[in-house]
């Protein structure tokens, strides 16, 4: 029972981590919060829905959602961040991104309606017995996808020139510029990657919950934001582990306590950890180690 719940929690947590990583990457390079990130996640899931209903295979659903989310993220950087960067206060982008988030919600409501819709299963799932744990092939796909994406991100940030440019930009924009790095371009790439991960998480969680609604992004976005704080602002590894912890806590509280309080337990654990470690599990700033 416990092992089973642990696996279920890791599956949920992996998708949460993907959302939180997006927040933390963007906060890392800009020191600004992107409050429409939850809506990028939601739009990614709806693009996945359209592709899935059109009969495309699961990997196309996933890749399409990631591409669409990436494009949306780059657009948001253009309209909601760049015009107010280096001008006005840190509060300005909070307001502009809240506005973008509302617009996205209402556009989706206009197209798909405000009611929750069913998300088709990607394939007829089979069950695998692994000792005490029963794993469906769908669960395996969800968990595997988030693990692979996080691994790829880690390698990208650590050892590619573009990844290094993003880390340098996150550490000090002036110095990054003096190294010949095009800082504006590094910021755009960061938005694209962060948003693509959110789009992937959208499809993964829609598969998991077998449905979605235009307000799907609000709760998950809030959770992702809190997980970023839990892991340490701008800390990618912290967001990964924070996501897994919250996923497990949530599933455990449903299994052993009361299912209607799942979010309350998740946020309570977060508050407790932050009381003990105010800078988060791993301390602040964009780093991979």
């Amino acid at each position, binding site marked *: 029972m416990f092992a089973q719940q642990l696996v279920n929690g890791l599956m949920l947590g992996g998708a949460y981590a993907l959302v939180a990583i997006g927040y933390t990457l963007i906060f890392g390079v800009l020191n600004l919060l992107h409050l429409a990130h939850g809506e990028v996640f939601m739009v990614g899931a709806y693009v996945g829905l359209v592709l899935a209903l059109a009969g495309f295979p699961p990997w196309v659903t996933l890749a399409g959602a990631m591409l669409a989310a990436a494009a949306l993220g780059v657009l948001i950087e253009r309209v909601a961040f760049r015009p107010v960067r280096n001008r006005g206060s840190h509060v300005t982008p909070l307001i502009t991104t809240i506005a973008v988030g509302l617009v996205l919600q209402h556009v989706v409501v206009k197209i798909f309606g405000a009611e929750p819709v069913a998300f088709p299963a990607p394939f007829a799932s089979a069950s695998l017995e692994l000792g005490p744990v029963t794993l469906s092939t769908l669960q395996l796909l969800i968990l595997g996808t988030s693990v692979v994406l996080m691994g790829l991100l880690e390698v990208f940030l650590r050892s590619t*020139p573009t990844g290094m440019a993003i880390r*340098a930009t996150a550490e000090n924009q002036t110095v990054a510029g*003096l190294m*010949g790095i095009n800082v504006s371009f590094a910021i755009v790439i960061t938005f694209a990657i962060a948003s693509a991960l959110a789009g992937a998480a959208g499809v993964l969680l829609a598969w998991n919950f077998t449905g979605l609604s235009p307000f799907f992004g609000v709760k998950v976005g809030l959770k992702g934001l809190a997980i970023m704080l839990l892991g340490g602002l701008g800390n990618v590894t912290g967001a990964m582990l924070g996501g897994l912890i919250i996923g497990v806590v949530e599933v455990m509280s449903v299994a052993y306590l009361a299912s209607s309080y799942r979010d309350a337990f998740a946020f309570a654990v977060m508050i407790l950890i932050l009381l003990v470690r105010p800078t988060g599990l791993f301390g602040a700033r*964009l780093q991979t180690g």
Partner: protein
Amino acid sequence: MLEVEDLHVSYGRIRAVQGVSLSVPEAAVVALIGANGAGKSTLLRAISGIVRPRRGAVRFRGENLVGLPVHQIVRRRVIHVPEGRGMLARMTVLENLRIGGFARRDGPSTAAGLERVFALFPVLEHRAGQLAGTLSGGEQQMLAIGRAMMAGPRLLMLDEPSLGLAPLVVREIFRIIPRLTAEGTAVLLVEQNARMALQCAAHAYVLQTGQVVLSGRGADLLATPEIQRAYLGTGEAS
């Protein structure tokens, strides 16, 4: 090679640089000395594009750099080692050096560049895997210069390389400068340590409240009484 013409830079209402003109010839060392707040660092920041001048021109090999983004100026191999060394403290020594080479995608391989830097500063090779933030001040300055060398600079601008370092370390850093010029790099050196700077500079400018008040050959300025009094602290004693 570098011609600064009537440059004016303001921060809000503060006029940090007011009509400075200077030139740096090919493969020469030019020093810029002056008290704190004289506008030396601001001048370098305007040349490398970090701040935008209000008026004036910065011509490098005939091209006006004013208005170009910082990374474009760096790609022309005008390399600025900022005051405080500009460490990427949460990245390793090796990563800092590799990033230094980003400016130069066409030139010799990164491996050749690394070999050259490690030959000049062997300590960096020993510390390659360490985070730059854990280095001592002298090692950080070596890393800052080594990282700049990775870009293959045509013009290297050093802002206070001796700041906060022990005399022995300062000498080690300064011994690099003739090697750079021997390879054709011009050096624009900002220093508070006026003696050190004037000794190695072919030409020097003295900046006061944003204006050039004196200029001449380094050796001549060293012998000027008012320079000795104001910047070398030896006037009265001798």
